[in-house]
């Protein structure tokens, strides 16, 4: 479930029986200094693991993590806020009598580690009495490793004034467009410094950087207003992301499109062929492919919140998920992918594997405590916690759509459409709890007439059913059209946790999809789907 990208730095309250919208560590602190808190991680780990063993744990792990966040917000010709912060703490997980117990603390001392481990064990023991089925872990090799994500310039080493100047220049480019009234922009940087020690003997250090520039340009017309957001998404990359693209030119173009949207014709509802740009398609992949292939959902572990899945273990290797051109690969090694890691939060190495092969659903996203339940003897490494204080649980890897082997361009896809719509950017996303029925909007919409892009449209959303939709895919862009967009705020679990994840994809073409008009507030044109 995807939250607004502007929530990347916004503090939110935790609700009962529901999810928070941010990584839990953001709830505790937003932003600060580079002074590293020196602790003897190995000695603390030894204390946690030996205490857990003494208290009867068959497995235990400790994560000692430090998170840094810097965020700068601006609007028009002013910087609204610059904040930086750090959050440091540890979490201990123990498995006793087949039942998990967890406890976490921001006080990183030897005594506190022993106290917290004892507390985690007490929780496991209290709950073991009501456990009906014991948790069993598949094995994973012992490893000692030090892993760093790929980046050229650490954003936390760049002076604030360089960042604020970059944002104000971006805003100026948007404001140079006649008719534009507002521009909001933001830079956010995340650094995760993670240490993991397990009772299997693994000791792993990881250092991860993510960079998230974003903006929104808004034009106000007569009794109307329209906005266009940046089409580029955050990535696991350094400050160099800001110089890899001409962001100011994109902001100007977005502003022009926002003004254009005010007078663009409202879409006529009906069936259209769609060509979906990667800046839009990635979230459709996230919702309709990423989530239903999470094994914990199929096992009903998410039934109370995020939901279950229309995919079930008996459909593995049998269900026709999409057309034969459709291949989805889960990948924790993908460059710039925000879910890319050296190792997951239980020491399983990053790897890649097919979820959908030649259109057929073939495999799941697994962890050490779910793999065995579908007859696997190893995990694909999907365990993740968004904070030292959060319980690690199954989270989505990068799930990416394989491009065509041929050098197909987006224009080639458009050329094959008589009556269609080309969609860019992420808009409104909604999908049911088993991932059948979805309705997605976008940022900009372009009418396709007789194989060519005509004028802009507005008020477009499309509604479909997952397997029908992917079954209608009949065109994919080639490698040169492939991009790796991602979302920093994938919400799941209770208590709610946030995951950063990417979905590489080329543009793709879908035939005869139901398009509705969102302006009327009634979803006019949508009453034509019947899947019973």
């Amino acid at each position: 479930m995807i939250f607004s990208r502007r929530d990347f730095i916004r503090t939110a309250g935790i609700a009962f029986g529901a999810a928070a919208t941010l990584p839990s560590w953001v709830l505790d602190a937003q932003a600060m200094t580079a002074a590293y808190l020196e602790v003897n991680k190995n000695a603390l780990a030894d204390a946690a693991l030996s205490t857990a063993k003494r208290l009867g744990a068959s497995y235990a792990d400790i994560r000692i993590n430090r998170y840094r966040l810097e965020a700068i917000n601006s609007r028009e010709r002013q910087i609204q806020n610059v904040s930086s912060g750090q959050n440091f703490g540890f979490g201990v997980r123990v498995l006793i009598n087949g039942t998990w117990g967890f406890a976490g603390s921001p006080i990183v001392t030897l005594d506190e580690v022993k106290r917290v481990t004892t507390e985690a064990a007490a929780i496991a023991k209290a709950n073991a009495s009501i456990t009906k089925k014991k948790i069993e872990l598949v094995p994973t090799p012992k490893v000692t490793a030090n892993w760093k994500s790929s980046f050229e310039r650490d954003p936390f080493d760049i002076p604030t004034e360089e960042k604020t100047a970059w944002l104000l220049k971006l805003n100026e480019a948007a404001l140079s467009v006649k008719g534009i009234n507002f521009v909001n922009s933001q830079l956010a940087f995340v650094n995760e410094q993670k240490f993991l020690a397990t009772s299997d003997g693994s000791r792993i250090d990881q250092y991860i950087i993510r960079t998230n520039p974003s903006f929104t340009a808004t034009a106000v017309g007569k009794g109307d207003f329209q906005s266009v957001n940046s089409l580029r998404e955050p990535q696991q990359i350094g400050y160099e992301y800001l110089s890899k693209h001409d962001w100011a030119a994109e902001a100007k173009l977005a502003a022009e499109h926002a003004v254009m949207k005010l007078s663009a014709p409202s879409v006529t509802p009906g069936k259209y062929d769609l060509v979906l740009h990667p800046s839009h398609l990635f979230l459709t992949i996230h919702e309709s492919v990423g989530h239903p292939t999470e094994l914990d959902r199929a096992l009903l572990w998410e039934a109370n919140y995020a939901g279950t899945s229309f995919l079930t273990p008996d459909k593995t290797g049998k269900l026709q998920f999409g057309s034969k051109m459709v291949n989805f690969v889960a990948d924790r090694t993908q460059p710039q992918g925000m879910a890319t890691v050296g190792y997951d939060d239980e020491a399983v190495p990053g790897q890649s594997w097919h979820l959908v092969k030649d259109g057929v659903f073939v495999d799941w996203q697994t962890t050490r405590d779910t793999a065995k339940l579908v007859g696997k003897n190893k995990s694909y490494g999907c365990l993740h916690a968004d904070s030292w204080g959060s319980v690690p649980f199954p989270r989505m890897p990068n799930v990416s759509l394989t491009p065509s082997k041929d050098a197909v361009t987006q224009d080639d896809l458009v050329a094959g459409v008589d009556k269609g719509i080309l969609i860019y950017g992420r808009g409104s996303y909604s999908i049911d709890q088993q991932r059948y029925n979805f309705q997605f909007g976008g940022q900009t919409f372009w009418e396709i007439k007789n194989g060519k892009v005509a004028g802009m449209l507005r008020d477009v959303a499309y509604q479909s059913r997952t397997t029908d939709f992917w079954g209608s895919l009949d065109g994919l862009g080639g490698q040169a059209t492939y991009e790796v967009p991602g979302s920093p705020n994938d919400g799941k679990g209770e208590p709610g946790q946030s995951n950063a994840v990417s979905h590489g994809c080329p543009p793709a073409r879908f035939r005869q999809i139901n398009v509705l008009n969102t302006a009327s507030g009634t979803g006019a044109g949508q009453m034509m789907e019947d899947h019973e």
Partner: protein
Amino acid sequence: MLLTEAEVKALTLKILGMVKADDASASVGSNKQSHLRFAANNVLTSGTRGGRNANVTVWIGGKRGSASTNDLDDANLRAMVDQAEKIASTSPPDREYVPTLSKQTYRPTSGYVEATANLSLADRARQIGAILAEFEKAGVIGAGFHSANSQTGGSATKNGNFDYERSTGVGLSVTARTPDGTSSGYFLRSHHDIAKLDTMRIAREAIRKAVEGKNARAIEPGVYTVVLEPQAVADLLGGFGFGFFNARTADEGRGIFSAPGGKNKLGEKIFDERISIYSDPWNAELPGSQSSQGGIPAQMVKMVENGVLKNLVYNRYWAQQKKVDPTPGPVNTIIESNGPTQTLEQMIASTDRGILVGRFWYIRQTDPRTASSTGLTRDGVWMIENGKIAYPLKNFRFNQSTVKMLAPGNVLAMSKPERVGSSEGGGGSLLPAMKLKEFNFTSQSEAV
């Protein structure tokens, strides 16, 4: 683990003592959370965590910087202040700077209950164990989430204000599914007082809905009269608050309450005349914070009265620009009827043909100009015929404008409000069940 008022005061004053800037505010908080999550009739995860944080915002020559940390020793607090001052010194001027508040007087609210803060792990295990047994007895597959939290915190300003408060919360949500996967029921309640949380009632309501929802029929989507249970109302309207009633957004021409010429719709009758929407920090069932918008003493604020938009939310900067007082809220959301109320049962009994909805899910805005959203029903939808619940229905997707939904003539009945939280998040509100003349279901959903 939770910081006392004296500790918070000492820490915030210590931070301010380190500040060299012209103006500053410092805040310090602490919290404790614990949970037990269960699924597939089994315990899934359970844990506790403590947290604390400090934050400082400084202004040097009208330039602003902000920093935070979760390590509260002197060296880290000093590093935090240095960082904020370094940021301020290299930032452009803060054009929206308003001096921090001088000493304010707060009227305390009552959102902290010791028994909630000191929840017993053994008691919780026993209660959830009883619920797991209830699932087995009813022949359903159950899942749920029990969580409790407590927090204390406060802030101080260089101009002499200090504000401290504490609160607690506990909640339980339960989903029950039939083993064949064709029916699902859900129930959620939360409170600040653990004594008011009836855990077995929550489980039994979820189980009842799952059992009664078997053999659901599919009917054509379309415009129907609906009766919305308080949970469904919370899912749709629980997010009413600062964002929805933001004055600046309206004045800038980019909100639902914008009027031409840089004006807004204050004073206009927008909603059905029986609707009142307000915030009350001292409501015994739903205590709010004693301070709003970073320190303004909270007061009761009527946003909508008799269907008329009475207030928008002005922050201190925008209030200064518009020469009005900043809004002392909202700190919670209460929607109630000005006129006579009906019970849910009376609403059903007075309906010839309509749909009863227990919960909505994955609600996302599709058009900010009309406050339109899409989303789906989930975990319990029923056909009402001739004043009775006739049979369960399969789920729908809807596309609906919130404003049109509550417009004059579309609200047929409201119940007395009760405390309920959105199932997608957002905390508790006091909300009624509602009977609406027209609601737009736009496609079927086969999801259970």
